């Protein structure tokens, strides 16, 4: 116990300041009509529900890292919740598999509006290496409307964070939203 207290006492705050260095090629925003009210509300408080629609769990590891002291998602007033009814942002990973297509749709319906959807990872964008597989229905945008796509296999936590923040920023100045395409190579390094 004393060792624990000593560690708590001697460990400084390790949270890194957020650096937005990613360009729009890596964070791809799809404009969707969202009212001004949602932007004002979410600017200070965002509750996120993670939906694994068939991911390999690579993205989940990176998303899990958002909760650690280094990235500390909570300082932006965001945190993960246990129920879609508590959420206003869905973080969807993976190519949508046949078994998860209906649960994903139902999760989207169970989420109270106004809501935003962030698709995380190459698989969520265009099914990645699983494209055309017999168990795969399609990308996330084939099932539910997507606001922001974060590319990468897997995208690093800072980029996922930038993606969520981009979804919030999008309402500030909708003209800054650019829809880009083309494959993004990202080795997961900073």
């Amino acid at each position, binding site marked *: 116990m004393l060792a624990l*207290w000593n560690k708590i006492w001697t460990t400084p705050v390790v*949270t890194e300041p957020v650096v937005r260095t990613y360009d729009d090629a890596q964070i791809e925003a799809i404009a969707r009509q969202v009212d001004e009210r949602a932007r004002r509300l979410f600017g200070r*408080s965002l509750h996120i529900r993670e939906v694994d629609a068939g991911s390999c769990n690579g993205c989940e590891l990176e998303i899990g890292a958002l909760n650690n002291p280094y990235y500390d998602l*909570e*300082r932006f007033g965001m945190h993960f*919740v246990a129920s879609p009814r*508590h959420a*206003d942002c869905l973080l969807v990973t993976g190519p949508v598999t046949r078994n998860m297509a209906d649960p994903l749709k139902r999760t989207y319906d169970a989420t109270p509006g106004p809501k935003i959807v962030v698709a995380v990872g190459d698989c969520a964008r265009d099914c990645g290496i699983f494209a055309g597989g017999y168990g795969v229905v399609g990308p996330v945008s084939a099932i539910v409307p997507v606001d922001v796509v974060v590319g990468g296999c897997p995208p690093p936590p800072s980029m996922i964070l930038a993606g969520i923040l981009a979804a919030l920023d999008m309402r500030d100045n909708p003209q800054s939203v650019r829809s880009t395409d083309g494959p993004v190579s990202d080795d997961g390094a900073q």
Partner: protein
Amino acid sequence: MLTQILIEVIQLLIVGLGAPLLVGLVRRVKARLQGRRGAGLLQPYADLHKLLAQEAVVSETTSWICRFTPYLLAATMLLSALLVPLLTTQTPLGFLGNIIVLMYLFLLGTFFLTLAGLDAGSAFGGMGSSREMAVAALAEPTVMIAIFAIALRAGNTGLDEIIRRGAADSLLLLTPGHLLAFMAFFIVALAETGRLPVDNPATHLELTMIHEAMVLEYSGRYLMLIEWAAGMKLLIFLALLSNLFFPWGVALAITPFALAVAFVALAMKIGALAVGIAVLETAVAKLRLFRLPALLSGSFALALLAVISFLFVK
């Protein structure tokens, strides 16, 4: 008359507006102890404001209980705020009920919340309700015995009278019965308000949830009312702990100066208890569900010893 109404309005404001700040303080201190920066102190206000403006999705399989419970919870907490002596020992509406009434007001909320957990028919809701009832049934005897321990000392179950006796005779605070009753009541307060080591308010894991599992179905303004009520419950319990057991600074007479001193003293006492809870929650892990009876019967034993010690140490 006007003064009395004013005091009750101040009590309502302290409990209603102070609750989110208290929750924010506990979260902030925990974040710092974990080496994180954490959200600001005012974050819970932003959360509640957002929930209030959000759409409320209600399952079509639910009955009126689901929609009624959040209002009942908030109402019982606001009613408790009128009864609890926060600033003065002359709470205007204190005659409406003693500490026993207060505890059963809380239990009424718990009862309806467990019904609401069952209402939607989801597996997690039922699991949370069953656990909540198990914890409530175990905590109930401890609450009553701990209350009797301090009521015996004051010769009265009225909250105002207990505090007046404590403030009049500061040596009472050093009797073993008093300290034992404090420890018993503190453990029960943790259990009743769903804090570690009984329940983890920050968990995302449905399988370990107690309180959170019952409210999984709520959204929008209903969730806002439930979270607000949970914060108010925590604040009222901490206020009871600090005023019943450490009645320093509570205004014995109603003067503006005494009330101001009482307010500062209350804020400091509750702040210290909140920091204590944050430190405790950082240091201990959640207890396994089947270990909870041991913890709660331990607190029952402490409460019983407090009553027995009253018979020997007067």
